[in-house]
């Protein structure tokens, strides 16, 4: 009988245990990986759809998404369409934003989804920024004039429930509907989240969440930074102000 309290046995026991556990977990991760990725894809589709006011269930999200999507394009930081094999849906915003930190700003890609609902075009722009405790993200949809916000949906990883986490509630998101990101003379203003409440006639401001100032500021920053990158595209595709935009590019799927 070996001494089970000897150093040697302890080391062997620990090593064997670690290997067995590692193999088990690796197998589980490989087996369940595809299902989990599919769930994440469906959730992304649901979020995008909800920004243009289409409610979807897990089962029909993919079908609705393919039904309404008109085009998905990838832009570079000059607002020009990039022609390559990258699909807008597969772009990871986090990785794109990390390119800024490593000085590869000119390689940053910006996805844009174009939907057609009831014969009107909607432009959905994914946004991503910082909240108080972790990342916040969302989708902003613009109407055909590329100025008026049609809808917004926001998500967060770990904002405080009841405070910052309120950005994912309908009450907060509905405030964005009808706001504009350009002023009357065509200058970019973005939409700001205003602490203490936005004046009722403010076309570029919404009420902040009381007690959630850092998250609210994060939303403002995220919107102005992201939308700014799309301005060249908006300007070049919408020069006549309100006319139907000309979008060319590979079709969806």
């Amino acid at each position, binding site marked *: 009988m070996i001494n*089970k*309290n000897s150093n040697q*046995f*302890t080391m062997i*026991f*620990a090593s064997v*245990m*670690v290997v067995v*556990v590692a193999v*088990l*977990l690796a197998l*589980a*991760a490989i087996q*369940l990986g595809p*299902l*989990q990725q599919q*769930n*994440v894809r*469906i*959730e992304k589709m649901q979020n995008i759809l909800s920004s243009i006011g289409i409610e979807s269930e*897990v089962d029909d999200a993919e079908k609705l998404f393919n039904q309404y999507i008109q085009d998905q394009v990838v832009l570079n930081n000059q607002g020009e369409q990039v022609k390559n094999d990258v699909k807008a849906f597969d772009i990871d915003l986090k990785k794109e934003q990390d390119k800024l930190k490593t000085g590869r700003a000119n390689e940053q890609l910006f996805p844009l989804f174009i939907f057609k609902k009831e014969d009107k075009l909607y432009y959905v722009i994914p946004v991503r920024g910082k909240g108080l405790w972790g990342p916040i993200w969302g989708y902003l949809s613009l109407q055909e004039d590329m100025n008026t916000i049609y809808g917004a949906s926001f998500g967060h990883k*770990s904002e405080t429930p*009841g405070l910052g986490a309120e950005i994912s509630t309908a009450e907060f998101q509905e405030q964005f509907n009808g706001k504009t990101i350009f002023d009357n003379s065509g200058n970019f203003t973005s939409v700001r989240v205003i602490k203490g409440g936005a004046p009722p006639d403010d076309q570029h401001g919404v009420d902040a969440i009381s007690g959630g100032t850092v998250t609210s500021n994060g939303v403002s920053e995220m919107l102005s930074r992201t939308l700014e990158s799309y301005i060249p595209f908006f300007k070049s595709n919408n020069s006549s102000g309100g006319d139907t935009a000309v979008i060319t590019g590979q079709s969806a799927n």
Partner: protein
Amino acid sequence: MSTETVKAPVKIKVAGDGLFSSKNKKLVTDPLNDSNPITVQVLGICSALAVTTKMEPSIVMALAVTVVCAFSNLVISLIRNIIPNRIRIIVQLTVVAALVILVDQFLKAYVYDVSKQLSVFVGLIITNCIIMGRLEAFAMGNKPWPAFLDGIGNGMGYGLILVLVSAVRELFGAGELMGMRIIPESFYKMGYFNNGLAILPPMALIIVGVIIWIQRSKNPKLVESK
């Protein structure tokens, strides 16, 4: 009050006992009432406060804890005689952590919505003192089958309280049970309001307190002498 119940390892002779002898049944039923991990041993309170705003996540959490508790008890009991004494806590933690990660992966793959609601709390099952407590107090000193039953019993005892608390909180906080409307629309028209306090963590503590109060008034032997 919690230390006594956890520290004393319960030795049970199973030689000759049937799979579902009265002693084995007691392993499952005792934690539901007389040695309930939450109301009597007062363990695992943190997650009980956090996940009980709605019934659905509570039930999933209860199942997750039951599975982890039962199988970690089983595994530790199987290898109890070869675990080097000096690293036994690390071994227990590794087994629990591996099981929790497995459960988390399954939830993410099959019930994604619920896993998002539970978020970090599935991961925190690893630190749930009920599981470590049962491993130290029971699985290290008993055969696999009783240990497995003990795990199921304690998981269910935990789950029972979770479901009770979440039912009260969902009913008064949202007027729903399992997401279905219970309090009719006409009540709201007559001026009824959902209780906002019910969905905040303090309410869970109050309800657990009330459950403990009711349980002890019915069962005076649980009340410790002064």
